[in-house]
């Protein structure tokens, strides 16, 4: 297996881009990644996108995005794995280069959510859940997280405020981030007085509707100068329904993908300098931290509230605002996480830089853990 590195990254600002379509967003991010790599030749394109088929009615995403970046004819395919599409598409790109089949693989994620009304977006997001017996109850993605939130409080004695701190911490890190959707602080008081979205989860504990695109160019490590090496890229899945899981508060897909990634990269959680996790809601972030093995089960919320994930904490997490504040243009999110981790490892994160960051991890998760992709990157 060949060693694989990141040659270039690019992304758009996350927000509501009323005046631009998904092709324009995709082109901006991917061209930026090629320019960053100073390399224009591509052998394969992967497109990470979850909801284009619902929201824009667009399939054949591979061909249409290849055309959009001026390269009709390129082998190109869309990768869909719910909200983990970005991380899983990156994994497929990694395998293409590692195997030696392709040299230069461009993986771009895009989601254009602001074209529809909130109910339609809520339905499309619930598309990542089992349809006939889960979505049929009228539950939403946030509702499923809320059921876990209540179980978590009950089981471990965490207060809603301790869990709510995850959102405030994410916002602290988004201040001054040019590409963030909400680059401002959000106090814990404002989180805890915002209206209920799906009790006990409040609106300010949830990522919002967003448009955006992010891209990464991968290539053979020996052909890239000062590249960031991909030391592990793993994917695991779990039962979709939380009712079918033996222990609903343990995200088995996260545990499996992480365990394997640590083993392949020959590192432990304490070796990770910077971390990006999926905080689609606060509790998703808390459970992820625990199942990635950074904190003991049941301690995550307390430790986040105490500051363990801040820039000077034990494990600096979501260093540009995470899904909550940088934003969550779903199919692109996993690639924003990887691009941001690369910025940290290059030492180019500006006022968000974590000093001496050498090893970074990104966790891209669908639903409440039905699919999870884990990536470990290292400065060489």
């Amino acid at each position: 297996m060949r060693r694989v590195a990141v040659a270039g990254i690019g992304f758009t600002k996350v927000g509501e881009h009323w005046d631009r379509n998904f092709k324009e967003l995709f082109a901006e991010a991917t061209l930026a990644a090629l320019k960053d790599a100073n390399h224009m030749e591509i052998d394969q394109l992967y497109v990470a996108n979850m909801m284009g088929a619902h929201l824009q009615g667009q399939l054949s995403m591979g061909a249409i995005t290849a055309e959009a970046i001026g390269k009709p004819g390129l082998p190109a395919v869309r990768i869909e794995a719910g909200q983990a599409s970005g991380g899983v598409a990156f994994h497929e790109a990694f395998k293409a280069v590692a195997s030696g089949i392709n040299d230069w693989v461009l993986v771009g994620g895009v989601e254009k959510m602001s074209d529809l009304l909130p109910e339609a977006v809520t339905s499309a997001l619930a598309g990542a859940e089992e349809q006939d017996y889960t979505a049929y109850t009228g539950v939403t993605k946030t509702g499923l997280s809320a059921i876990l939130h209540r179980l978590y409080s009950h089981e471990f004695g965490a207060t809603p405020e301790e869990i709510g701190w995850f959102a405030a911490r994410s916002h602290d890190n988004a201040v001054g981030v040019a590409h963030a959707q909400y680059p401002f602080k959000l106090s814990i008081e404002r989180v805890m007085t915002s209206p209920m979205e799906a009790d006990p989860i409040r609106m300010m504990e949830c990522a919002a509707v967003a448009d955006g695109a992010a891209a990464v160019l991968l290539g053979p490590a020996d052909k890239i100068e000062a590249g960031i090496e991909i030391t592990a890229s793993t994917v695991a899945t779990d039962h979709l329904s939380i009712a079918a899981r033996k222990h609903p508060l343990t995200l088995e897909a996260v545990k499996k993908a992480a365990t394997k990634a640590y083993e392949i990269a020959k590192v432990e959680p304490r070796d990770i300098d910077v971390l990006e996790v999926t905080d689609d809601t606060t509790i998703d972030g808390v459970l992820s931290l625990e199942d990635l093995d950074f904190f003991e089960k049941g301690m995550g919320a307390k430790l986040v509230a105490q500051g363990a994930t801040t820039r000077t904490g034990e494990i600096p997490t979501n260093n540009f605002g995470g899904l909550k504040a940088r934003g969550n243009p779903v199919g692109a999110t996993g690639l924003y996480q990887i691009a941001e981790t690369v910025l940290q490892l290059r030492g180019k994160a500006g006022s968000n830089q974590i000093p001496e960051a050498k090893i970074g991890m990104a966790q891209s998760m669908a639903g409440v853990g039905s699919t999870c992709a884990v990536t470990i990157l290292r400065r060489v």
Partner: protein
Amino acid sequence: MSVPRYWREEKSRYRLVGEECTKCGAKYYPKTPVCGCGSTEFKPYKLAEKGKVLSWTVIRNAPLGYERFVPYIVALLELDDGIRLLSQVVDVEPEAVKAGMKVEFTLRKVTEDGQAGLIQYGYKFRPIVD
């Protein structure tokens, strides 16, 4: 919702019928083509109609087709036979739901496809009144 897609789930949804693996005895609701043990042999399994609330939420921003029911309760239930499922809990105010609350099966309208479309039914659960 297409009629065949609705029709083929009717029995399972209206009568809470799942499947039991004839080899290892594992029970599934909804049914699955292949058991975790590898077997593809199943027999019908009737779920218990009573159970308790393990956890719940109150949906305030609903998906399409469910808007007129908000706020509504969706709970993770454990039935008396140990099967877990997600279901709406009805005939109770959101504030009155408690962990461990006993509930029973009831057949209710779930949603309807506009003025002339299919009216969809399914299981919901309601508190057991002593």
